[in-house]
């Protein structure tokens, strides 16, 4: 019988709506419940529509990762209708997807998560000369730190704190030993990051019309036809973002992380990881991607191929009718029915997906572990570098933790940033080689298909059944369903719930550590 005594609702600085309840005893979280509190019904809206419509509508599931939903949807339609997209379209899609990764990860670290680790009030105490010295020592970029501090001071003195109203300034869970100068650097880069995430999304605007919600990766390939001028524009922006990631985001990560080394010892959870893989190679095979497909189970540092047939979704604790339970999404059903919120009965609009019966974490940590264990070169190099800095050389298992999850996302940003430049070169080479096809049409009117892909926040699947030219059934299993889904029919906790259990909570009225763990999933 669960008796939660700490509630966080709404969880801010995430996409959408989430409630978390914890049972805290003697400063430690003993039990936890995560509740998705919104149901919109995309799967029901898409039924009966044209297969190509799903691409445009399904991406509206998430305004932060619409590219990934668009791609998973369009891949499910292509699989159902027997379309293989031309190689040029594959490269274009990889670049658009990667630009969204850069956008999303930068936005996450600076705009959404940084305030959990950096007390902005502390930045007011920074000495400016020392701030420059520290930035140089950390190898991170410099800016007019005095101006940033003055702006911050103006905000505080003006008494209108705006988005900082009621924040948890001076919280004891902040690293007390962190110098104010590092806090000031982080605040300065918080502002800079706003421009860099926007720059990454301008790449999507060039190739996809706009961001969020892009227009071009429709079933069959891409509607965007590259021109010399536009490729040049894309390359310039990607180079700018890539340099900023290497010169600011990675050094910042490595400078801040040691102050939270304690977070290597909690927040890991079940320790099972799932990745469908992302960024197609010319083979277009799920088992042959830049960031590979794989499943890793607790206690064993090895990866095995991940098979979508092993998914089952459970609804005993979700607001869906019993007939929706214990199904693979390929046969999935959606019959919503709200009863009441009760952590001991039904408490979430998210189903509880399991893989081979197990709760699996989705996200950059899953992808980095699978890639590391698969020996993907740029991943092993940067992960080993980070492990060395954290004093855990040769111990990738420490990544199964709160800090590991945060670090994995930022390290992935660097890997993907490099790849984007490679892929622009690849696109130019394909164009020069006469590979000028970008779209393949189909006259098929029936079939079953799945699009297994990775959003920045983890493993994503769309399933489409087409009959008589229309969508007969549509199902989606998002990364956040894997991560924030609750207990299954056997009562086994969900991924985020388990990650919370055992974590400290030194101030139950301001559960900072719990909020950090929740946000580390970028739900």
């Amino acid at each position, binding site marked *: 019988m669960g008796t939660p005594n700490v509630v966080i609702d709404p969880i801010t600085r995430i996409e959408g709506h989430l409630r978390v309840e914890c049972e805290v005893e003697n400063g430690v979280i003993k039990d936890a419940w995560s509740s998705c509190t919104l149901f*919109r019904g995309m799967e029901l809206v898409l039924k009966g529509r044209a297969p190509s419509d799903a691409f445009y509508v399904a991406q509206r599931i998430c305004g932060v990762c619409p590219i990934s939903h668009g791609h998973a949807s369009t891949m499910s339609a292509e699989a159902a209708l027997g379309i293989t997209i031309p190689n040029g379209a594959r490269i274009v899609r990889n670049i658009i997807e990667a630009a969204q990764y850069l956008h999303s990860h930068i936005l996450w670290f600076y705009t959404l998560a940084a305030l959990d680790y950096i007390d902005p009030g502390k930045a007011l105490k920074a000495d400016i000369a020392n701030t420059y010295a520290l930035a140089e020592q950390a190898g991170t970029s410099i800016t007019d730190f005095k101006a940033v501090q003055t702006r911050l001071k103006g905000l505080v003195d003006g008494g209108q704190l705006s988005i900082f109203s009621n924040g948890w300034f001076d919280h004891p869970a902040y690293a007390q030993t962190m110098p104010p100068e590092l806090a000031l650097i982080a605040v300065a880069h918080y502002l800079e990051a706003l421009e860099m995430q926007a720059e990454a999304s301008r790449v999507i605007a060039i190739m996809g019309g706009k961001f969020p919600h892009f227009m071009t990766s429709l079933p069959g390939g891409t509607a965007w036809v590259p021109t010399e001028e536009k490729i040049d524009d894309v390359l310039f922006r990607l180079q700018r973002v890539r340099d900023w990631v290497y010169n600011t985001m990675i050094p910042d990560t490595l400078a801040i992380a040691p102050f939270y080394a304690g977070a290597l010892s909690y927040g890991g959870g079940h320790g099972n990881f799932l990745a469908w893989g992302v960024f197609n190679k010319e083979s277009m095979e799920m088992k042959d991607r830049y960031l590979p497909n794989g499943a890793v189970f607790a206690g064993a540092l090895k990866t095995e191929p991940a098979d979508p047939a092993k998914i089952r979704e459970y609804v005993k604790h979700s607001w869906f009718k019993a007939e929706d339970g214990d199904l693979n999404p390929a046969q999935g059903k959606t019959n919503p029915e709200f009863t009441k919120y009760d952590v001991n009965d039904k408490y979430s609009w998210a189903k509880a997906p399991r893989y081979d019966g197990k709760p699996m974490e989705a996200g950059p940590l899953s992808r980095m572990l699978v890639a590391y264990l698969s020996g993907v070169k740029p991943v092993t190099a940067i992960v080993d570098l980070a492990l060395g800095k954290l004093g855990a050389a040769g111990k990738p298992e420490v990544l199964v933790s709160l800090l590991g999850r945060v670090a994995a996302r930022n390290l992935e940003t660097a890997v993907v940033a490099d790849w984007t430049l490679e892929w622009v070169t690849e696109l130019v080479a394909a164009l020069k080689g006469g590979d000028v096809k970008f779209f393949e049409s189909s*006259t098929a009117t029936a079939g079953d298909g799945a699009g297994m892909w990775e959003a920045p926040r983890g493993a994503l699947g769309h399933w489409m059944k087409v009959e008589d030219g229309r969508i007969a059934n549509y199902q989606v299993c998002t990364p956040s369903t894997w991560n924030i889904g609750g207990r299954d029919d056997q009562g086994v906790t969900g991924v985020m719930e388990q990650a919370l259990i055992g974590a400290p909570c030194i101030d139950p009225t301001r559960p900072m550590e719990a909020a950090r763990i929740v946000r580390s999933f970028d739900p």
Partner: protein
Amino acid sequence: MAHEDQAFYDQLADRGVTRRHFLKFCGSVAAMLALNEAMVPTIAAAIEQAATSKLTPAVWLDGGLCTGCTESTAQSTYPDVATIVLDILSMNYMETIMYATGASAEQALKDTVEKNKGKFIMVYEGSVMTGWDGNALRIAGKPALEQILEVAPNAAAIIAVGSCAVDGGWVKSYPNPAKAMGISEYLKSQNISTPVINLPTCPVNPEWIVTMVVDVLLLGKLESGAILKELDEFGRPKIIFGQTIHDNCPRRGHFENGEFVYQFGSAEEAKGYCLYALGCKGPQTYTNCPTVRWNNQTSWCVESGSPCIGCGDFNWVDENAPFLNRFRRVGIGGYTQTGGYNPAKVATLAGGVVAGALVVHGVGMYAAGRIGDGPPVEKMKDYDRKRTKKGGDN
């Protein structure tokens, strides 16, 4: 003209924004507001003043959303989102970016409403979720409808951002599983009369939010009530939603010449031909996307090679799907029409016939009085009438 505040320009310079950049931004705002260039100094002075005096309090409520409108707002460049929420507005509650969380966040909302009754701006993003007595969306342990009822009556004005907030958006599409609706409709059902400014499209274009902030707040049109005269019968600013995409489309010339793209990724697309044959909803969609564009004026849907899907239309998914057809079909929400997903068939329908059909459509809209103060839809040019076998209005 007001005194130029050096501190303000220093502050901009700190963010790499030169005075010239800033005045350029003010110029684009003036253009969007259909104001004379002589208004630029007034706008600049108003922004300066706002940035150096007490900020207008605002709260941003999240309904049944994808967060795309917040994301879109974060893509605004001049001013960037930090300027909007730190220097122009005091955004005391905005779930996606605010520092506070949980009960502390709720308290910030409560404080803002209590201390600023009738004086703060409420931005609403996402659909109003009425399904299961409002339990389709729960915030702070209760139906989110309660949050709306506590905040909306006390706001000076509400800006509904994005199609979901305006009329329920895709969430309301057939079969509307969670009984979604727009904020205006919901407030009406609750007899709440706070004025609502509707900014449709999916997501909202941040330039429009910026324009409204300048227009409504800084130029004082809310206090004077002048803003209400500038809205159409659907609560949309006429300056933004008064003309169709087709009216201002850079590919319009190809439409006039009967030069269409029949296949995605084709040589015709490379030449920038008209996307009407592939289902473009530009002719019936009222927004200024072609002139304002998206992501700091980087591009927009048609420029990237995609037909407009009419995300700024009312009930846009049911009205416009299948997006790649010129016609809707039977079976979705009781809408009636013919045909299925079949690009080949669309291609045969296009050409001259579509041009004629469009003129009829345009005249119909004109007769229905839906065209605002902008120029009327052009009748077909003689040149085209001679070239089309069946088309035209002759």
